[in-house]
């Protein structure tokens, strides 16, 4: 008995010192693994002791009084012991540090409090002893719970809590979707990089570890091959005979169609990919290159590799933008703007200036700056800017995607600010006096997709230069006048 205590004590002190060496780690972890086994002792003992403590206040349980100190002592000792091995275990790493910290120190305090309570009891300081005991028990609960979280994950306790309760308790109701992104189409492993992700997104919620509808799991090769209650779902090389394919291609009103009505259906392209995969022996390891994808399939995969740009600007995906302050919006209206929300529950707004109201001056600018991060579409078509205007401040509207300056009084020297608009896709300068000097600014906008220069002073050569500098940029320069000539001869 004594011996063990010594060794443990020594270990505790020494461990940091030689925790470096390889085999020592091994040894620590070996002891550490006893933690789950040990922890239940103090829990049991201390709880029982606490009950006896309480009961023994009643005359008929007087007899228990004697047993409490003994239990307290051993409970405390085992608590510290398990804390120790727990500490060893933690050296293995891989635990949420925050939770671990609390688990460890609360764990230790369980033991410390218990033993203190024991000592005070011996000194017959009953009251104080009782309170220490109580706090030890409280620590015990929390420590236990945290331990549970450490091993089973944070949502262990709440995973199966009814959603209604989760709402009340403010616990997120999570759904995980994984976007498919390919680095390189040819090297992509069809199953791992494409097919499995599709299954994960569209099927695994019902055919996975949590749920196995029709005793079918589609979250790993083994399971897919194993099939479901109706047997094989996959007949490599035979699309028609593969249940997996059959079910996803049924007409949507069909009872057996997968995913069932109400769930997100598979994209046409996703079905094509699965079909092609099965047709190609449903290989689990071959790359796209090895499988020699036909053009149409390759194009689909290519979409994953180089998405043809989000159909809407990425700005709209920003989640951290606050809705504009209504006060500022009404100020904007008073300044002569019309303001429209881009969409329901979106912080972004579209702003249009009505020239008729008053010339565009710094007052207007100030009003705009108040909603700088919310404005994505700005229409200054036909606007006359005051001479004094510090127009460069428009650069503060950092989320601008579309900017209309057509038929406005904008000049070359006022255009520099556009370079700072990191999201700008659409810039309309038709009917303005801008010249070739603006082109450098335009080139400097990385995201620019479409610019309009009809009836501006920009020269054809300039346009050429711009086009060659930014090949992907669409530049509209106005009419090709042939359209006005040669209409067909009307026959009588």
């Amino acid at each position, binding site marked *: 008995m004594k011996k063990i205590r010594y060794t443990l004590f020594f270990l505790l002190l020494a461990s940091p010192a030689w925790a470096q060496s390889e085999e020592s780690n091994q040894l620590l972890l070996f002891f550490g693994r006893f933690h789950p086994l040990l922890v239940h002792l103090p829990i049991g003992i201390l709880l029982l002791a606490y009950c006896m403590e309480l009961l023994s206040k009643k005359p008929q349980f007087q007899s228990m009084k004697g047993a409490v100190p003994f239990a307290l002592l051993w409970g405390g000792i085992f608590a510290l012991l398990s804390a120790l091995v727990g500490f060893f275990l933690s050296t293995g790493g891989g635990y949420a540090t925050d939770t671990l910290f609390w688990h460890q120190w609360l764990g230790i305090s369980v033991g410390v409090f218990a033993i203190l309570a024991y000592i005070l009891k011996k000194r017959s300081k009953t009251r104080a002893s009782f309170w220490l005991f109580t706090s030890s028990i409280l620590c015990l609960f929390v420590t236990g719970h945290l331990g549970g979280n450490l091993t089973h994950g944070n949502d262990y306790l709440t995973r199966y809590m009814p959603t209604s309760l989760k709402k009340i308790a403010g616990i997120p109701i999570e759904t995980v979707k994984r976007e498919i992104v390919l680095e390189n189409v040819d090297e992509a492993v069809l199953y791992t990089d494409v097919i499995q992700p599709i299954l994960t997104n569209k099927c695994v919620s019902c055919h996975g570890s949590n749920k196995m509808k029709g005793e079918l799991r589609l979250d790993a090769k083994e399971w897919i091959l194993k099939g479901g209650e109706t047997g094989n779902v996959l007949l490599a090389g035979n699309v028609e005979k593969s249940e997996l394919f059959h079910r996803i291609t049924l007409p949507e009103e069909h009872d057996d169609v997968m995913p069932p009505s109400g769930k997100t259906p598979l994209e046409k392209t996703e079905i094509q990919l699965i079909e092609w995969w099965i047709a190609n022996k449903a290989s689990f390891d071959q790359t796209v290159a090895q499988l020699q994808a036909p053009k149409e399939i390759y194009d689909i995969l290519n979409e994953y590799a180089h998405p043809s740009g989000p159909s809407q600007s990425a700005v709209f995906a920003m989640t951290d933008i606050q809705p504009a302050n209504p006060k500022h919006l009404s100020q904007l209206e008073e300044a002569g703007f019309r303001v429209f929300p881009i*969409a329901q529950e*979106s912080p972004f707004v579209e702003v249009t200036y009505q020239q008729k109201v008053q010339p565009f001056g710094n007052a207007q600018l100030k009003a705009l700056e108040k909603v700088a991060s919310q404005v994505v579409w700005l229409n200054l078509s036909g606007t006359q800017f005051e001479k004094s205007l510090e127009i460069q401040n428009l650069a503060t509207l950092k989320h601008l995607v579309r900017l209309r300056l057509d038929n406005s009084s904008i000049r070359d020297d006022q255009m520099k600010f556009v370079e700072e608009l990191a999201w700008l896709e659409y810039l*309309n300068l038709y009917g303005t006096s801008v010249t070739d000097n603006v082109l450098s600014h335009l080139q400097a906008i990385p995201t620019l997709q479409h610019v309009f220069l009809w009836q501006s002073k920009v020269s054809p050569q300039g346009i050429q230069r711009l086009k060659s500098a930014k090949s992907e940029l669409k530049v509209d320069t106005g009419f090709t006048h042939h*359209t006005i000539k040669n209409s067909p001869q009307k026959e009588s």
Partner: protein
Amino acid sequence: MKIYKEAIHKKFELETRRHFLRKCTSGIGALALGSLLGGCGKVIDQMGQMRDAARPMKALPPHFAPKAKRIIYLHMAGSPSQLELFDYKPELQKLDGLDCPPSLLEGKRFAFIQGVPKMLGPQYSFAQHGQSGAWVSDRLPHFSKVVDDVAFLKAMHTDEFNHAPAQLLLHTGGPRLGRPSMGSWVTYGLGTENENLPGFVVLVSGGTTPSAGKSVWGSGFLPTVYQGVQCRSKGDPVLYLSDPEGMNRNLRKKSIEAINKINQETYEEFGDPETLTRISQYEMAFKMQMSVPEAMDISKEPDYIHQMYGTEPGKASFANNCLLARRLAERDVRFIQLYHWGWDSHGAGKAEALDHGFKDRCQEVDQAMTALLQDLKVRGLLDETLVVWGGEFGRTPMRENRGGQEMVFVGRDHHLEAFTIWMAGGGVKPGITYGETDEIGYYGVKDRAHVHDLQATILHLLGMDHEKLTYQFQGRPFRLTDVHGHLIKDIIS
């Protein structure tokens, strides 16, 4: 203006959300939009939109960020032959003059074809155009130069083979009268960004309204405020817009001021918010009297524009309407609907024969619709304006044989299985062709699209989910696409 502000303010005090909810719980139930527009307050409607009685046309946020802010719909009433314009069928040329195989006739109903008709090859020569290599016949020399800006839907189909029901199905989602038109749905869902003009404008050319009459721009069971406003090229652009002879702008201003002043008194006496609404409506009417004629006056457009569209001010032509459409789009009108009558090429008479009237129709529209596309494009408007062109159905690959015998002129009968429409701008993929018909252009064989799918897609491009845009009527939520409609993803950029 002050009065107007007060109107809004007053209403806000009156109808906060909390207030509304309390009423809900007081057993009276949610307020029907109808009762709201009757006159007062702000109310959350069934779609969760905060509506304002004083401004039924006030712009409302779409469900999601839109691709198109407005739409110009060019409807070719009577339905042009896809086989003479876009859907090139060399096979059909080979079959020209042969009897139609019975398999195509079994169980089919046609308006006029009887017995066994003859097949009819394309009447005009086709060629491929632009980088997209789209097929267009020689009837549309101008348009063939802009094919790279448009997307063709070649396997459109519908359920109705008569003009009125087919037009209703296309524009109201149902083949019978009584449902709201697309424009009404859109203005009900989105309002308009320029309340000085009607939000839903209708322009008619070709001498007559479409077969289904004004119902194709009617508001059905939606409040009448959402029905299309027909702007005419003769007389008042909008009915009763112009002041009586001898009155001038200033005097009208004075009289409306007087009316509103007294109405303000009335409000102070009766405290009825609808009075405030009326005050604001009179102010709005006054603005409209100014802005509508200004928008509708094409005479001040430069010559090269007139030359480009082929317009002649003061005449009710499709060309004029195209130019008007551009002017209205510039002024943020939400839904601009054009109708051009005269495409019903049965061949029963010269005016409606593929070898005569049809050519004239092509000439009337070719230059103008091309000009519209280019004009919108260079002004940077095409990106945010959706343009749709098409008829209510297609025409048969067989030659019409009214009364069972060959007719003097060449024509085709109504056909609901396959027809072509094109779309451009407003988030539509440019330079693509979606859908295919069989080798004689009878059935769609690939990527067919029903008119309900077209409606769903149009609403989507305008930022609305066709399943969420609903109106409670006769105990159930109605929508434009009824219980149908699938988004045509492949044509959205």
